[in-house]
């Protein structure tokens, strides 16, 4: 069972705030036959909300450098973050379809790095990679029992949207992420306004954290009303938003633990708990 070799794009929040997501991802992907290599000297993707909003030419040029590193190493990219996925996927898409933009970006890239973007690299989100290339049966075969938890699956925004570019699943009624969570032995519970933004994106968390928190609280209320026992995300930024917001919400006495899909799969596959890095979570994980 070999699903191929990929350049593992780390981004920022995973390696620097939730390294347990990184160790879980490395272990889980390895056990599913996905070989990873480091993308040497990669940087921030850079973050779509706080970089694309400020200057789209800089955003694309830094993203193109990250894409060019993977091309130089001869591997496709896999990321476990919606923000990194959005930046890298959208930039590759734009540069593959707009020769003028490609020429402009490549001039900057060549001057700064000596590299150019050639359009040979594919950008993969690990949920989509697990669904399409690894398959649900392979995931089921690795599950070592454990608890069947009622899970609120949070897709986040930039994994599937804009769907005319990403072409992964229906943006309004998606199923790929739920299918993986169920393959891991959990029950994906429907809840009101599932699919709503966590509140953090677009620079809103940095500039107006109170507004971001209100959106998060609305999601949490809906999840709690559905009786879920765990929130499962596929993006370290949504993960951070749900994890650090709950201790701030005084009218929410019962907290819901937050797991990135890599950590949930780690639990289901019987990985040592110490490898999941759960002790840094601000909303306590007692599962």
């Amino acid at each position: 069972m070999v699903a191929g070799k990929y350049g593992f794009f780390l981004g920022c929040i995973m390696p620097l705030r939730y390294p347990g997501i990184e160790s879980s991802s490395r272990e889980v992907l390895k056990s599913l036959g996905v070989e990873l290599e480091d993308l040497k000297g990669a940087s921030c993707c850079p973050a779509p909300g706080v970089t694309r909003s400020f200057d789209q030419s800089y955003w694309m040029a830094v993203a193109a450098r990250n894409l060019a590193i993977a091309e130089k190493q001869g591997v496709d990219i896999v990321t476990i973050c919606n923000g990194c996925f959005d930046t890298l996927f959208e930039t590759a898409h734009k540069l593959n379809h707009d020769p003028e933009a490609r020429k402009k970006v490549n001039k900057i890239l060549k001057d700064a790095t000596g590299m150019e973007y050639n359009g040979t690299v594919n950008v993969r989100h690990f949920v989509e990679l697990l669904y399409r290339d690894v398959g649900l049966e392979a995931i089921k075969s690795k599950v070592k029992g454990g608890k069947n938890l009622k899970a609120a699956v949070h897709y986040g925004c930039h994994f599937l949207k804009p769907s005319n570019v990403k072409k992964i699943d229906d943006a309004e009624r998606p199923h790929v992420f739920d299918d993986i969570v169920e393959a891991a032995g959990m029950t994906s519970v429907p809840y009101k306004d599932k699919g709503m933004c966590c509140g953090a994106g677009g620079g809103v968390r940095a500039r107006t954290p109170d507004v971001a928190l209100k959106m998060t609280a609305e999601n949490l209320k809906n999840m709690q009303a559905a009786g879920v026992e765990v929130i499962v995300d596929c993006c370290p930024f949504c993960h951070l938003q749900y994890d650090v917001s709950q201790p701030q919400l005084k009218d929410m006495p019962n907290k819901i633990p937050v797991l990135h899909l890599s950590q949930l799969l780690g639990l289901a596959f019987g990985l040592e708990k110490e490898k999941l890095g759960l002790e840094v979570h601000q909303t306590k994980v007692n599962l």
Partner: protein
Amino acid sequence: MADTKEPNPEFTRKVIEGGGKTVNLCFQCGTCTGSCPSGRQTAFRVRKVVRRAQLGFEEDVLPSDDLWLCTTCFTCYERCPRGVEIVDIIMALRNMAVRKGYMAEQHRKVAELISKTGHMVSLREEDKVLRGKLGLAPVPPTVLSDPKALEEVKKIAALCGFDKLIVPGGK
């Protein structure tokens, strides 16, 4: 009669050139506002931002806090019956606002971190310790452990003029 303002097609043209090429397709149905998670919590109305961009009301839109309440969730973009690429319009407007000096201090700080360190969050001693405990390289194999790679990223910021956009003292 209420005061009326003259449309400014020149500004609308700049929005289109900045990536908001579908701005004129909007017929103001309000599906975007009805779908907006941020608008549920605040007075932000996406439809109005698009209308101001269409009419070229630069002074109403660029200095406005509303422009920064969009989380770029793409729900409006997905649901728009006219195929208006609303997030692309907002990005074009935000880029123009930043060039006019409208950048919140919190945003300036994150942008500065990215342009100087190559990452949007910092590497603290405690992160190195925890990474080591998890069996990971204490310093991630990114620009953080490669000064030459960091120089490349800084050079991109200089070539794009990004470092000049983030000088302190914005509006």
